[in-house]
């Protein structure tokens, strides 16, 4: 093997430009959409977690987020392997060879990490949501999915414990830490609810027994769960006092234009439980509609795959 002067020695050949994706559309199949929704959530939030590698507030958290990222990407790969026969595409191509509008993750997964408060808020909310939906899928009629999720859930226990431990630690800490967490929760809670946006084809999946419970039912369980936890640290006001997700811009006629992204989800406390009473924020992910935050992430995540199609190492 020729000796290299340094790991950063210039490449002997110029790096090719990352090519745009040119592929026929994916088959219209409800099972595929379900798998991609689950897998893309894991891949994209895993990518965001990996951005803490080298930068987390302390070494143990550097390890934790790097390790969680590695798990999430592996879970995504396992689900892409299940999708391969339906999609007719190799798992690597499914992970990295789709156009941005073919990704089915919820918008919250693509948001930048912002600060530690937002990071912890999102990780906790996401892993509670993931636990609710994968728990419901333990009784799916689809054996391969049940087996895969059985293994995935054992590893997710560690993510859930991490999110819960940090939620409590920051919530019960001094004023600054608590305020940062509250700020993160105000931004993350409305969009986290859209993790339970109805999956296209959900009715068919419910009648086949692939899904045991509908999205609205899962959202109710999650909201009840996080509602009690938030109450226990007196942070439940974030459920109703959401931060504005945009600005109202009056039109020339002076009317305020109603825009989808300004919708604030309704949450109320009824009979001792927090319940959803209509409205969502940050939806569209399950249909392939994403925020401006996804473009740069997609470009970076897929650059190598697009520059060197079919590369393996």
């Amino acid at each position, binding site marked *: 093997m020729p000796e290299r002067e340094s790991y950063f020695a210039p490449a002997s050949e110029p790096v090719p430009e990352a090519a745009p994706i040119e592929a026929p559309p994916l088959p219209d199949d409800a099972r595929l959409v379900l798998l991609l929704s689950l897998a893309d959530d894991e891949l994209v939030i895993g990518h965001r977690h990996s951005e803490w590698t080298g930068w987390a507030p302390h070494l*143990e958290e550097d*390890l*934790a987020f*790097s*390790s*969680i990222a*590695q*798990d999430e*990407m*592996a*879970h995504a*790969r*396992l689900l892409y392997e299940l999708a391969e026969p339906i999609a007719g595409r190799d798992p690597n191509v499914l992970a990295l060879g789709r156009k941005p509008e073919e990704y089915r993750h919820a918008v919250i997964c693509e948001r930048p990490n912002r600060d530690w408060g937002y990071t912890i808020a999102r990780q906790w909310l996401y892993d509670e949501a993931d636990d609710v939906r994968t*728990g419901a899928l*333990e009784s799916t009629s689809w*054996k391969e999915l049940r*087996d*895969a999720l*059985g*293994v*995935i*859930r*054992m*590893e997710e*226990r*560690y993510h859930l*414990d*991490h999110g819960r*431990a940090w939620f409590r630690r920051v919530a019960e800490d001094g004023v600054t830490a608590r305020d940062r967490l509250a700020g993160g929760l105000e931004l993350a809670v409305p969009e986290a609810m859209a993790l339970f946006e109805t999956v296209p084809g959900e009715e068919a999946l419910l009648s086949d027994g692939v899904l045991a419970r509908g999205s609205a039912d899962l959202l109710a369980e999650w909201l009840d769960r996080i509602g009690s936890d938030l109450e226990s640290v007196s942070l439940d006001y974030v459920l109703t006092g959401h931060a504005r997700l945009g600005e109202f811009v009056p039109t020339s006629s002076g009317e305020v234009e109603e825009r989808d992204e300004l919708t604030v989800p309704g949450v109320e406390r009824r009979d001792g439980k927090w319940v959803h009473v209509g409205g969502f924020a940050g939806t569209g992910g399950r249909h392939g509609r994403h925020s401006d935050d996804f473009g740069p992430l997609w470009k970076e995540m897929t650059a190598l795959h697009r520059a060197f199609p079919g590369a393996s190492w």
Partner: protein
Amino acid sequence: MDTLERRVWDALASVPDPEIPTCSIVDLGMVEQVNVNEDTVEVDLLPTFVGCPAKDVIGEDVQAALRRVGDGHAVRVRFVYDPPWTTDRITEAGRAGLRALGISPHWEQPAGGPVAVSLMREAGTPCPYCGSADTVREAAFGPTPCRTTHFCRACRNPFEGFKEKPRLPSTTR
């Protein structure tokens, strides 16, 4: 008895986990099934952790080891997820191999010690060097997806733990 099946198991016992070289894949309980047919040898393996980067290497090493003893049989190696791999599949030799590398078999309870109620057990993981239970967990994550990091207050050594994957009621079918 020198049957092909015996030789296949011996070959599997010679394949180490590349990240835990003191343990073979048999010690770690990764071999679920071996089928020797007229012209094929089929092996089903259970991956320990889904994100284990050693998985692909193990698959290739098993292929190579089986081809060496296979008498021209076709070799098929699969990774399967049913049943799920759990830490209780690790054999006594596997536990010894982990300890030799400074990795505590995490799920072992120290004699008379506290009973773990959470995967995030803060204290009490037995030290692989001196055996003391006077230890603290520093992080539930470590250098690989399967490890945690700890410190022993008795012998003042940092050590690692193997992440427990318990046989949960919901996953036993």
